[in-house]
């Protein structure tokens, strides 16, 4: 079985896998450094096959169409966007979800995953959950009261925190997510933080009036925090 999965690398790079195989392979990718290396290199080779094609030039309008569509489109993963809220325009739908997942598959490689398979799978599930919220055309953005970034809330209450400039958690520490309802806070997952932008999906769902917060805790997390939040959203 394991060998069978490794063999999917060429097929994945060439996009000949069906949906189930893609999913199985992406899950495997999270825990297999060898396949990640191989895939990176096969992707470069596949890109050479793209260069081998030739044909007519695209219509000169295409560039403008792309830039106009970009301007009208909600740019989902822009930490600086929290300063102004935008009206959300559904443009791409499911197709964009697939594309964003490819991007996340690339991004995931760089996150410092532990060698533990279950951890890696959980991380991938989370990335997928995050992607689905981020490309949900009815998702809305909530600014942060503290911290740089924003909270994106999907139509069903699933939420993704996009954070810019949060340093990786120190050795032996972890960031913990909280959904705060009035006086009580429920744990909503742990993350270690990375250089650059962090995109983390919360466990559980948020409701109007809730606040999402992040604290720094000892490894393993806690059920009740005694620390002040480093990040807090405005009211959802």
């Amino acid at each position, binding site marked *: 079985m394991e060998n069978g999965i490794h*063999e999917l690398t*060429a*097929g994945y790079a*060439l*996009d*000949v*896998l*069906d949906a189930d*195989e893609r999913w199985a392979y992406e899950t495997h990718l999270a825990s297999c450094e060898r396949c990640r290396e191989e895939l*990176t*290199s*096969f*992707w*470069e*080779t*596949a*890109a*050479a*096959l*793209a*260069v*081998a*094609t*030739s*044909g*007519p*030039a*695209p219509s000169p309008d*295409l*560039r403008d*169409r*792309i*830039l106009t*569509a*970009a301007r009208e*489109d909600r*740019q*989902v*993963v*822009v*930490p*600086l*966007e929290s300063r102004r809220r935008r009206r959300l325009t559904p*443009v*791409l739908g499911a*197709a*964009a979800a*697939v*594309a*964003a997942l*490819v*991007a*996340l598959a*690339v*991004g995931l*490689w*760089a996150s410092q995953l532990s060698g533990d398979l279950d951890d890696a799978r959980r991380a991938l599930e989370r990335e997928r959950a995050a992607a689905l919220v*981020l490309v949900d055309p009815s998702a809305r953005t909530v600014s942060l009261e503290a911290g740089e970034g924003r909270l994106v809330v999907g139509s069903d209450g699933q939420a993704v925190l996009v954070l810019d400039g949060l340093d990786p958690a120190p050795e032996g520490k972890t960031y913990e997510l909280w959904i705060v309802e009035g006086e009580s806070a429920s744990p909503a997952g742990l993350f270690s933080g990375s250089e650059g*932008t962090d*995109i983390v999906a919360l466990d559980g769902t948020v409701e109007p009036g809730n606040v999402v917060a992040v604290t720094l805790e000892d490894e393993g997390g806690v059920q009740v925090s005694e620390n002040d939040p480093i990040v807090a959203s405005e009211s959802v």
Partner: protein
Amino acid sequence: MESPASAVLAFPTRERWSMRKEHAHLSDEALVAQVARGDEDALGELYDRVGRIAYGLAVRVLRDERLAEDAVQEGFLAVWRSAATFRAERAKASTWILTLVHRRAVDLVRREERRRTEPLGDDTPAASAEAAEPTDEAAWLRFERERVQTALRQLPDVQREALELAYYGGFSQSELAQRLGVPLGTIKSRMFSGLARLRELLDESQEGSWKTEFTS
């Protein structure tokens, strides 16, 4: 250790035309970082650099110029939307963009039932490339294309056939096996050996490429 294929493709900025001087000197990866901050001009510059290749690829897969433009547009919008998730240490920006456009083109072609019933033939745009060689594109692109085509010609026929049908045809691997009348395992191993061999050939021809002298 550097990935063996890291030298397969390079997109020299020297030959590129750009309206925005402040972006012209940036690497593709730096442009993606700008796009992540909402810089539309950076997206335009990326399109100027990779759009032509992306479109050629999409036309080859979709055999329809309008659908190809859709695939390119959606690919670039995906770049716009998810630029912040891109990690330059793992993949080159141009590769990432082409991967997104290819995935989109393949998804579109799989929806086109019409396409499925056509016989396999060598009537794709690239097959007549010699006759219709575009004259308005950059020298580096013509050079790169010739280099890749030369490498492709050196592959064993069954490997080249598997790669071309897989990458340009939009078929799933089980459809490929069926069409070629060989077991699935054979297709998998032809694709794998084909990509590995092509990577080697491209690495070899990279030595002595003019790009090496001009861009180092």
